[in-house]
C-alpha cells in the first residue's frame, strides 16, 4: 500500500493505487474531502502537476492493522526543492477506506515559487465546517481521551506516548526533558530546517498562546513495533483572536514519532498551514517561525 502511494508521486502510477480505492473511499487533502474515484483522481492529477515525478528522499512508516501512517519527503530534481507529505490511512491491507493526507503547503509554495497568498488561492475549497463552542476545561470528573484509550502498545511505550500527549493536552512542558533524546530530530511543517526539541517546545508555546481556549483531541493512532514508530492523527480546536474578533478554528495534525531506547529520537509535526488559512480566512503565518 505504501509502495502504491510512492509510485503515484514518483511515477504517476494512478492505476495501481486506484485498485486499492473503493467506490466509497475518501481522501482528505487541504481540508477538502474527495469521495469516489472521480474526485480522488482529480486531487491526484493536481498533486502530480505540482510535485509529481519526484524522488523520495525520506520515508518513515508506521505499518499496522486497520490504521497506518507514512511520511514522505519528495525532491523535485529540476528545482532542487522538496515537499513533505504525511498520510494517515484506514485500510484492511487490500483497500483503503479513508485517507487523510497533510501536505506541507509552505514548502510546496517554495517548490512552486509562489507566495503563500498565491498558493492559498490554488487550494481546493475546504469542506464546510461548523465548529461548536464547548467546555475545553479538564474538570476533575470529566474524561478526556489518552493514547492508551485507543492504541495497544507495550507499557513503556505507552508511558512515553502518554507523556507526549500530556505536553499537548495538559501543557506539561517538563515532559520534553524526559521523553526526548537530546539530539532528537524535529520536523515542523512550515519550518525550513530540522529542529531540536527546544525549538518544538518554543513552537508549541507559541501555538498555545496564539490559539486561545484550545483543546487537543486525539482521533486515531497506530503503532509499529518493528519500526519503533507511532502515528497520531489529532486536532486542536480553539479561538483565533484578531482585533477583538474571535474565530473558532480547527488545526488537523499528523504526528509521527520514532522511538529508540525509550526516548523520542525523531518527530514530524505535520500541518497544512495554508489550507488552514484558506479554511478560516486567516493571515499567514499563524505562528511565526522566528
Amino acid at each position, binding site marked *: 500500500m505504501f509502495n502504491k502511494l510512492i509510485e503515484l508521486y514518483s511515477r504517476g502510477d494512478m492505476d495501481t493505487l486506484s485498485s486499492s480505492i*473503493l467506490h466509497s473511499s475518501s481522501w482528505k487533502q487541504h481540508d477538502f474531502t474527495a469521495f469516489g474515484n472521480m474526485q480522488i483522481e482529480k486531487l491526484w492529477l493536481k498533486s502530480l502537476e505540482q510535485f509529481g515525478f519526484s524522488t523520495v528522499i525520506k520515508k518513515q512508516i508506521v505499518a499496522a492493522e486497520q490504521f497506518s501512517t507514512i511520511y514522505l519527503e519528495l525532491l523535485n530534481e529540476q528545482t532542487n526543492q522538496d515537499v513533505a507529505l504525511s498520510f494517515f490511512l484506514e485500510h484492511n491491507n487490500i483497500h483503503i477506506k479513508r485517507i487523510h493526507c497533510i501536505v506541507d503547503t509552505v514548502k510546496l509554495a517554495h517548490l512552486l515559487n509562489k507566495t503563500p497568498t498565491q498558493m492559498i488561492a490554488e487550494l481546493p475549497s475546504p469542506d464546510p465546517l461548523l465548529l*461548536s463552542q464547548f467546555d475545553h476545561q479538564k474538570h476533575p470528573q470529566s474524561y478526556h481521551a489518552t493514547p492508551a484509550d485507543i492504541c495497544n502498545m507495550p507499557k513503556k511505550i505507552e508511558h512515553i506516548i502518554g507523556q507526549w500527549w500530556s505536553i499537548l493536552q495538559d501543557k506539561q512542558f517538563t515532559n520534553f526533558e524526559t521523553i526526548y533524546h537530546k539530539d532528537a530530530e524535529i520536523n515542523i511543517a512550515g519550518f525550513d530546517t530540522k529542529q531540536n526539541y527546544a525549538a518544538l517546545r518554543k513552537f508549541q508555546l507559541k501555538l498555545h498562546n496564539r490559539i486561545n481556549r484550545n483543546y487537543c483531541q486525539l482521533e486515531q493512532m497506530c503503532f509499529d513495533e518493528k519500526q519503533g514508530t507511532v502515528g497520531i492523527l489529532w486536532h486542536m480546536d480553539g479561538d483565533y483572536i484578531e482585533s477583538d474578533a474571535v474565530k473558532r478554528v480547527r488545526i488537523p495534525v499528523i504526528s509521527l514519532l520514532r522511538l529508540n531506547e525509550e526516548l523520542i529520537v525523531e518527530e514530524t509535526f505535520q500541518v497544512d498551514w495554508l489550507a488552514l488559512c484558506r479554511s478560516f480566512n486567516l493571515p499567514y503565518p499563524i505562528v511565526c517561525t522566528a
Partner: protein
Amino acid sequence: MNMMKSELNNKITQVHWQPLKKLLAPEEDKQQALIGFDDEFIDIVDYIIRITHRIWEQKNIGLCYQYYSDICPVFTLGGYSECVEEVVQNTLKTIAAFPDRSLIGENVIWKEDKDNTYYSSHLITSIMTNTGNSDFGLATNKTGRVTTVADCVCFENKIIKEWLVRDNSFLIAQLGIDLIDAAINFAKLIPNNTFNTWYADEYNRVQQTDHRLALPLTKLNWSVDNFVHSWAQTIFNQKQFSTLIDFYHVVASHQWPGGRKSTGLAQISGTLIQWLAQCPNAKITLDHIAVVNVDETTIDIALRWSVAGTYTPHTARLAMLKGNRFFVLGCTHLRVKNQKIIKEVTVFDEISLYANIIRESGMSLPLLQEGA
C-alpha cells in the same frame, strides 16, 4: 414502534469494504427468503444497492415503476408525495439539475419483519455538480457532497413506504447559498394537506413523550434496545451531558448536519448543547430501530427519530420566529463497538426545518440581497 430484530445474521452483504464491481455482481448464494422479490437478489442489502445504482447512476429513472409501488408514501421534512409518478418526476428533476450525481452507498442497515416486509436504512454519500436550476435556486455550477439516509419499507420487490432525509444545509454551504435565504425560498413552496396533517400529528405525538422518565443504562441491563432508548432519553430529553461517556467512546466521531464534525466527548457535548439550545424544551422519540452485526464486537444501528419543541432562535434574522413549532424528522446511523458508539452520522434537512417554521409563522422575511 417497530422493535429491532433480535437474530443477527452476518452473512448478509456488508457494504463497508466491498468494491462496487463486486456489489453489482454478487456471487454468493441467496441469504434471505425475499418472497416476491426478483430471483437475482441475494439479500435485502443487495436489492437496495443494485436498484439504487440502476435508477440513479445508470439513470434508468423509469425503473422506479418496477421498484416502487404505485402508491408509495414518501415522507420528508420538506413535503409529502404518494405515488410513483411523483418519485419518477422528482428523480428526473434532480438528475437534470445535478447530471453527474453519483450515489455512493456507505451502508445499509436492515430489519426483516414477520409480514415479509424488509426495512432498510441506506446511508448514501452523493457527489454532484449543480449545473441546472433547482429548488435551491439558479445553477451554481459548483460540485458538492451531501449525505442522505433513505429509510424504506420493501415488500415483494417494491418500495412501499419511504422516509427520506438529506443534509441540505451542508450541500448549499458548498454551493455558496445562504441557509436562511434557502429556507425563505423553500417556505414559499406550499405543501399538500397530507403533509400538514402529518406534521401536526407528529408534532403532537412527540410532545406527549414523558421526558422525565429515568431510563438508566447499566452493564446488567445492556441491550441494543435499552442502549438507544437510554441514549435518547438521557441526552436529548433530559440533557444530561456528563453521561455521554456511558454512550460514546472517548474518540467517537460525530457528524451532524451543516458541517458539524466532532470527535470525542467534549466536542460532541458542545455540538449537542449548541443545537438543542435553539429548542430547549425539545423532546425526542425513536420511531424505528434496526440493528445488524458487523463483527464479534461491533454492531450498526439505524435510528429514525423525531424531535419536537418550541423554537428559540439564536440567529438574529430569525429572532421574530421565537415561540413557533420546531419539528425535525431525522435519521442516525451508529457504529457501536464494545457497547460504545465509535461513529455517528446524523442526517436531517435544516433548510426544511427552518422553512416550515417560517411558513407557519406567516411572516415574510427578507433575503440577504434584500438587505437582511
